[in-house]
């Protein structure tokens, strides 16, 4: 049970999760597969020693985003999908082809560089302090403005989401502001 095995297992979990999420007709199943994907990715983050990111991944994606998507699904269409309908959109074959093309285009530089990066080994991080603490210090010290902007963005997104989702009533009010 070493690192490599863990990597393959987690990779398989994430890939299968993502595939199921993307291909499943039943949306709720799809969302749960998506959550499996998120969890697998969190595992990969742990494997890369980014434990805080792993927690945040679970907290934000599995905890918040998943629920949000579930709510959206419950508020919109038939959950299990209409059986008479196609799952895929028109000409999805070409979509798959293009996705494959993108894949190749991304892969090409990676493969070309493999001899270069193959020997890159991760540094042994001997961090005296906890990395979470380090991260927090970093967030306050050089990135405080980013954090503030991010907070502003989240607030704006919150208001925007509420306004957009509220629909009718909000826009009636909005017309008077000019």
């Amino acid at each position, binding site marked *: 049970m070493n690192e490599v095995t863990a990597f393959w297992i987690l990779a398989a979990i994430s890939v299968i999760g993502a595939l199921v999420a993307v291909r499943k007709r039943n949306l709720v199943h799809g969302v749960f597969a998506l959550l499996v994907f998120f969890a697998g990715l969190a595992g990969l983050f742990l494997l890369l020693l980014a434990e805080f990111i792993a*927690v945040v991944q679970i907290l934000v994606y599995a905890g918040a985003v998943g629920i949000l998507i579930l709510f959206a699904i419950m508020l919109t269409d038939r959950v299990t999908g209409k059986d008479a309908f196609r799952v895929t959109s028109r000409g999805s074959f070409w979509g798959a082809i293009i996705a494959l093309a993108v894949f190749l285009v991304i892969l090409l530089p990676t493969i070309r560089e493999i001899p270069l990066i193959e020997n890159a080994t991760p540094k042994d991080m001997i961090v005296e302090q906890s*990395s*979470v603490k380090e991260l927090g210090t970093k967030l306050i010290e050089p990135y405080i403005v980013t954090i503030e902007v991010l907070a502003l963005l989240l607030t704006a997104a919150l208001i925007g989401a509420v306004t957009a989702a509220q629909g009718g009533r909000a826009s009636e009010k909005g017309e008077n502001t000019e």
Partner: protein
Amino acid sequence: MNWELIGDILLATVPLLVIFPSMFALTTWVERKALARIQNRIGPNKVGVPLTPYGGNLSLFGLGQPAADGIKMLFKENIVPTGADRLFHLLAPILSLIPAMLVLCFLPLEFPWLNGEQNSVKAFMLDGAVIFFFAITGLNTLAVFMAGWASRNKYSLLGGMRAIAQMVSYEIPLVLSAVVVVMIVGSLNAAEIAEAQAGWNWYVFQPWGLAAFVIFFIAALAETNRSPFDLPEAESEIIAGYFTEYSGFKFALFFLGEYIAMFAISGLAVTLFLGAGGGPGVEALPWLKVIWFLAKVCILIGVMIWLRGTLPRLRVDQLMGFAWKFLLPLSILNIFIAGFAWHAKKANEGTAVSVIVWVAALIILYAAAKGLDHVNRAKVKPRTYQYGE
């Protein structure tokens, strides 16, 4: 294979898997007994230890009830409604139990049989234990949704959606009140938080700590769907909420998950505010720490039961309003006050100023709570009757 490590992990985790489920069994009995007594009933008092297979029975105040319940649950038929999503119907109780069990690992229980280096469950003593705790408890919401949706029953779905809305709303004051302690200690590590409260420096004795503890406890009640916030399983409105279509062993798992979650969150409250394992005599006898910890957890559970016997259920709008209009502003204010108070106290260690700050913080918090309460109530007009009089 590192057998030593595996041995340590087993030594640390197996007790958790023994202690808490057995505490669960006991708690079901205590709860039934206590609720009955509160309502002037007797409660379960028949089932005991059967002395012979043909009769003759030692009743022991009905202490055999949990075992009997368990056996009954185990042997009940597994009913899955027609049209339900079989897979998710099965997965939901499991998914509800796993996070609850998992987060127990983050509690700073210092078992005496682990040597000093691997004090408590060191294998799981991650730097971000507290945030891990919240992240993983958040998964419980998904289990609830899964159960509600998979049952293919409108009551179940309604219960599930109610539960999600409630859990998501109350998670915010829960986390924000925990933030206060994290901020003061300067660490997310549960062991360090416990360390910081050694002696009698429990944070509940600080005004901000008291406020945070009360907020935390209320939010914890809502988070675990306990009365008076048990709307998701409000019998009089939606049968049993997301439990409606569950019976037998699956129901037992749900039940177990819910109670373990209660223990876990009480454990976190004890860790954050009630000095973890601290108590009289721990310096001399370190193993007392576990006892004290569990005792405090039990007291909190007792209060939960007591509250369940006392308070009526809230209305949905009251529930949401309470979270967003009362707890949230108060917990945000509390963060600021904690910061100020801590700095003021640090600057004037041991002087009269620190006492004044203590009193002032208490007064401000109380006034703020009172004011929020007043503001929230101002909008509620006395009910008028159209055809009454």
